[in-house]
C-alpha cells in the first residue's frame, strides 16, 4: 500500500522553508523541486536500517545537486535518520549541517557534494565496488538538469553502461531552470531521456511530483530487470509547492523572509 507521501512531503517542505528562512539560505527552488523525489526515496524505496545506518550493505544515495541539501537534511530527519532538532543548525555558525553537505556528518550523507558533475562518478564507482564486493546494495544519484551540462556526467554515463551497472539509478531533476536561465536558452538539451538512451541507459520519464509514478519508477529501476543502468527523467517544477517560488529563476538565490515564510507555511498547511 502506498504511504501518505503527500503529507510526508508537505512536512519536508515546511522544514525546508523554515531552515532557509532561519539561515538566510538560498536554493529554495532547487530543494522544492526535488522534495517529492527525496520523500519517496527515503520513505518508499531505499533500503536502510535506522538502527544500523552504517551497514555497508544498505542502499546508497548521493545528492549530486548538493545545493538542494535542505531537502536532503529534512528528508533524513523525516526518515528518522537524524534528529529533527538538528535542522535548526542548518547553515548557521559552527555547524556540521553545511549548506553543501560533507560526507560523514550525518548518517546517509555518503559523499561531499556541491561541485556539480561529481555525484554520478562517485555513484558509479560505488555501484562498481558493490558488484566487486558482491554486495546487493543499490546506488541512487540525484542530479540537476543544468548539472548535466558538465562533461563528466556523460563521460561517466558511458562507463556505467559499458559496465552494465544495473545497480545504479540516476535521477535527473528536470525542472528546466538552472543558475542563469532556462536550459532551453543555455544549452537546450531537449529530450534528456533520449540522451541517456544514446549512452546506453534504460530511461523512465515521469512526473517528478507524482508519488505513485516516482515509486513505480524507483522500484522498477531497483529490480534490475535488465543489464543496464537506469536514468529516471523526472519532470519537475523548480520551487514546487510555494506559489511565489514556482518556476522563478531568482529563487535559486533568494531566501524567504519572515513574511514569505508565513505565506509558505500557510500554503503548506497540514
Amino acid at each position, binding site marked *: 500500500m502506498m504511504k501518505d507521501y503527500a503529507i510526508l512531503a508537505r512536512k519536508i517542505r515546511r522544514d525546508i522553508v523554515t531552515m532557509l528562512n532561519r539561515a538566510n539560505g538560498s536554493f529554495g527552488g532547487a530543494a522544492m523541486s526535488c522534495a517529492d523525489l527525496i520523500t519517496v526515496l527515503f520513505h518508499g524505496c531505499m533500503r536502510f536500517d535506522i538502527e544500523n545506518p552504517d551497514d555497508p550493505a544498505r542502499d546508497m544515495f548521493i545528492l549530486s545537486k548538493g545545493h538542494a541539501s535542505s531537502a536532503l537534511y529534512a528528508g533524513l530527519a523525516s526518515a528518522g535518520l537524524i534528529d529533527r532538532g538538528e535542522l535548526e543548525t542548518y547553515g548557521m555558525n*559552527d*555547524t556540521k549541517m553545511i549548506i*553543501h553537505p560533507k560526507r560523514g556528518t550525518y548518517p546517509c550523507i555518503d559523499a561531499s557534494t556541491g*561541485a556539480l558533475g561529481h555525484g554520478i562518478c562517485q555513484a558509479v564507482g560505488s555501484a562498481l565496488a558493490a558488484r566487486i564486493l558482491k554486495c546487493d546494495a543499490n546506488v541512487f544519484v540525484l542530479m540537476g538538469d543544468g548539472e548535466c551540462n558538465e562533461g563528466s556526467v556523460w563521460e561517466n554515463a558511458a562507463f556505467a553502461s559499458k559496465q552494465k551497472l544495473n545497480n545504479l539509478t540516476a535521477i535527473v531533476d528536470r525542472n528546466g531552470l538552472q543558475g542563469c536561465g532556462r536550459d532551453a536558452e*543555455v544549452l537546450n538539451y531537449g529530450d534528456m531521456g533520449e540522451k541517456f538512451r544514446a549512452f546506453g541507459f534504460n530511461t523512465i520519464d515521469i512526473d517528478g511530483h507524482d508519488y505513485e509514478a516516482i515509486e513505480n519508477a524507483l522500484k522498477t529501476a531497483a529490480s534490475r530487470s535488465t543489464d543496464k543502468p537506469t536514468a529516471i527523467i523526472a519532470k519537475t517544477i523548480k520551487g514546487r509547492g510555494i506559489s511565489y517560488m514556482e518556476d522563478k529563476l531568482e529563487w535559486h538565490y533568494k531566501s524567504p523572509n519572515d513574511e514569505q515564510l508565513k505565506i509558505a507555511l500557510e500554503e503548506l498547511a497540514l
Partner: protein
Amino acid sequence: MRSIFIDELTKIARDDARIALLMSECGFSVTEGFAQEFPDRYYNVGIAEQSLVGTAAGAALRGLRPVAYNMAMFLTMRAFEQIRVDVAYQNLPVILAGVGPGVGYGSAGTTHHTIEDIAIMRALPNMTIVFPAHEIDARAATRQAVELGKPIYIGLARAPRQFNVPYGAESFKIGSAIRMNDGRDAALFAFGSMLPVAMEAAAALAGDGIKLRVYNAHTIKPLDTAAIDEALRECGAIFTLEEANIIGGLGGAVAEYIAELNAPCVFKRFGIRDRYPERMGDYQWLLKHFGIDAASVAASVKEALKA
C-alpha cells in the same frame, strides 16, 4: 569587486572590440549590463568550466581578448588542465576572472572555498596572478590585464570590505606592491580581502607601540622582490597573510625568495594551516576559526616578534 570588474570591462569593451565575456553559469545580477550592451560578445557556455576555458583560449587564438568569468574554485580547479595547456602553455591573452576566492562563499562550505588557487596557479609558467583589494585596484587591474596580453588570473573578492587606501589609481601597477604606511618594526604582505584585515591589525598593534608596515601585495606572481628587499632592509621582520592555504601561497613565494638570500630574518606565514574545516560558518566566523581575523593576526604578529 566583481561588479567593479564588470563595469570597468564594459567601459573597456566600448573602445576595444577584442573584449568578449564568456561565463559558465555565473554572474546572475552582475553581468547583465555587459550582456545587454554587447550581446554578440557575451556567452554563457553552460555549467561547464572546462568548456569555458577551452573556448576562451580558442577565441584568443584568433586575436580576441576573452574573459573567462566564473566562481574562483570551479574556474581554477575544474578547468585546471585547460588553463595549463590551452592558456598558459600557449601563452594566450585570456583573462581568468575568479569570483569569491578564499573563503568568500563562507557558509556554503568547502566545495565553494578556494584555498588552493594561489599554489596551483603560481606553479604555471606564463601566469600572472593579481588580487585587487580596493576599487582603485580592481579598475586599474582590469585595464592592465587587457594591456598585458598574456595569461592572467584575477581574484575578485565576493563581499569586499570598504576601507581607505592612501594612494590613487596611478600607483597601481601589476607587479609592484604598494606600501600602505611607513611602519618599521615589521612588514606584513597581504592581498585581496586580507588587506583591510592587515590594516586593522596594524592599527591595533599601533596601540601597543608596534609599528607594522603593510604592503598591498596585489600581484602574487610575478613577485615584487624589490618590495621584499626594501622590507628586509627597513623592517627586518617579514610576515605574510592570506585567505588561502599557507602551502604554496604568497607566504610560500616570499619564503622561497628569502631562503635563497641566505639572510636570516624573522619570518612567519599567516593563512589557513593546511586543513579543511570540520564545521562551517559564515565568512567572519571562518576567518576567526582559521586565526586570520584582525585580532588573531595582531596577536600572532606580537607573538612572533617576541620570539
